[in-house]
């Protein structure tokens, strides 16, 4: 299977989501605005839940709403991420596999990304992620050399800056949106902040 690129925006939001709810399992959807057929580039993500991940109704509502938003914004759902509450075990849970399977039905080349909590300590050097791809109807570990994070150092720095400034609390996931529907789960405000921090270095986020 081919290379998968993870953009700064997608990585930072995913990472901040797991930092915002350190005692919960969190999950979300990975999106791409790149055309079908080319190499897979995850350009954005939508944080979904931080409670009751295996329960169906809210997940279904969220998937529908994100689908509609993607259609409006020329994006597509290309993957799923999850961070487990228990840092000692970063393997995909049954509910992660189920949702990833559903996504793979619509998008061949879909990826399943687990955030490895054990690697998120201060001063961590490598991206704390483990990626799976679909081979022969099973999710198998993807060769980490095929996962590209352009300008990793700068991406890591952006994430840390947002944590230090407390701006990570700007992040809205679908769960928070349901608690207060005036909150924007597309995270336009946070996206702008990330673009601001990333732009001196990156040409594109």
């Amino acid at each position: 299977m081919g290379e998968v690129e993870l953009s700064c925006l997608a990585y930072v939001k995913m990472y901040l989501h797991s930092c915002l709810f350190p005692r919960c399992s969190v999950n979300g959807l990975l999106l791409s605005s790149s055309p079908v057929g080319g190499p897979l580039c995850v350009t954005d993500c939508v944080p979904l839940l931080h409670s009751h991940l295996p329960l169906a109704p809210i997940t279904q509502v969220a998937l529908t709403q994100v689908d509609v938003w993607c259609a409006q914004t020329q994006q597509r759902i290309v993957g799923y991420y999850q961070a487990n509450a228990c840092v000692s075990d970063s393997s995909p849970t049954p509910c992660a596999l189920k949702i990833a399977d559903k996504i793979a039905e619509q998008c061949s080349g879909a990826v399943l990304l687990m955030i490895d909590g054990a690697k998120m300590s201060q001063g961590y050097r490598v991206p704390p992620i483990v990626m799976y791809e679909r081979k022969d109807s099973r999710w198998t570990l993807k060769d980490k050399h095929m996962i590209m994070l352009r300008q990793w150092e700068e991406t890591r720095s952006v994430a840390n800056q947002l944590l230090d400034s407390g701006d990570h609390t700007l992040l809205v996931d679908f769960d928070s949106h349901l608690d207060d529907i005036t909150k924007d789960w597309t995270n336009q405000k946070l996206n702008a902040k990330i673009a601001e921090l990333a732009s001196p270095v990156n040409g594109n986020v």
Partner: protein
Amino acid sequence: MASVSELYDVTWEDMRDKLRKWRDENYRNSEQIVDVGEELINEHSSKLGDDIWIIYEQVMIAALDCCRDDLAWSCLQELKRQFPDSHRVKRLAGMRLEALERYDDANKLYDSILQDDQTNTAARKRKISILKAQGKTAEAIRELNEYLEQFVGDQEAWHELSELYINEHDYAKAAFCLEELMMTNPHNHLYCEQYAEVKYTQGGMDNLDLARKYFAQALKLNNRNMRALFGLYMSASHLAASPKVSAKVKKDNVKYAAWAASQINRAYQLAGRGTKESKCSMKAVEEMLESMQITMS
């Protein structure tokens, strides 16, 4: 770095009251508690009177959450000095060991409390938390079940057990726990709504029907519960679209779903007043409603 009192222009009494509010309402906003509590302890301890001990406890636990072992240790020392033989303080010492992942040492401490006092629920619950932290979910569930046989009124424990079962995808048992909670807390809309979500996830017509009823009940108790509103919409739509239901059931559920959809639309209109994000959420609801119409006909 500016102090909390400077940044927010508050007095030490305000800070003390805030800590009390957070304590009473069981908030786990640990970073804030550490900021406010540390300053209160360092600058105003003489004014706090006997309150200081419970504040030490609160700040210590928050410090553990924020990886501030220095602060946790100093709070613990003050408490040990004041209450040398206290089980309550021993439990705090155990929690510090847990935070340092010294689970065997923590367990020894809790076991010694239980030897002295078999009914010490706090120590038993800490031992279960250790199992959970170690990923030993099946054991945690077993221990928690045993605990609940003895302490059948412990709401927090029933809720914890329901969460553990949900994560293990044992929805029938999760539902049982939530039923216990609903019986003892009939006005709590959250338990109704969680029960409904579990039933919905279990699937099948009977469960969907129950789900719909309990989503409706949750809305009766709190008509702003968006999850319950969406849940009512989803369950009623599925029931209405199913070929297995009678004409009357279909008709009723079409009505429920339409009502839910209109309430959702209204809520989003009020919330968004035409902002871009709410437009897309509204569109999603409209699309959901349209798709339901198609399966109706």
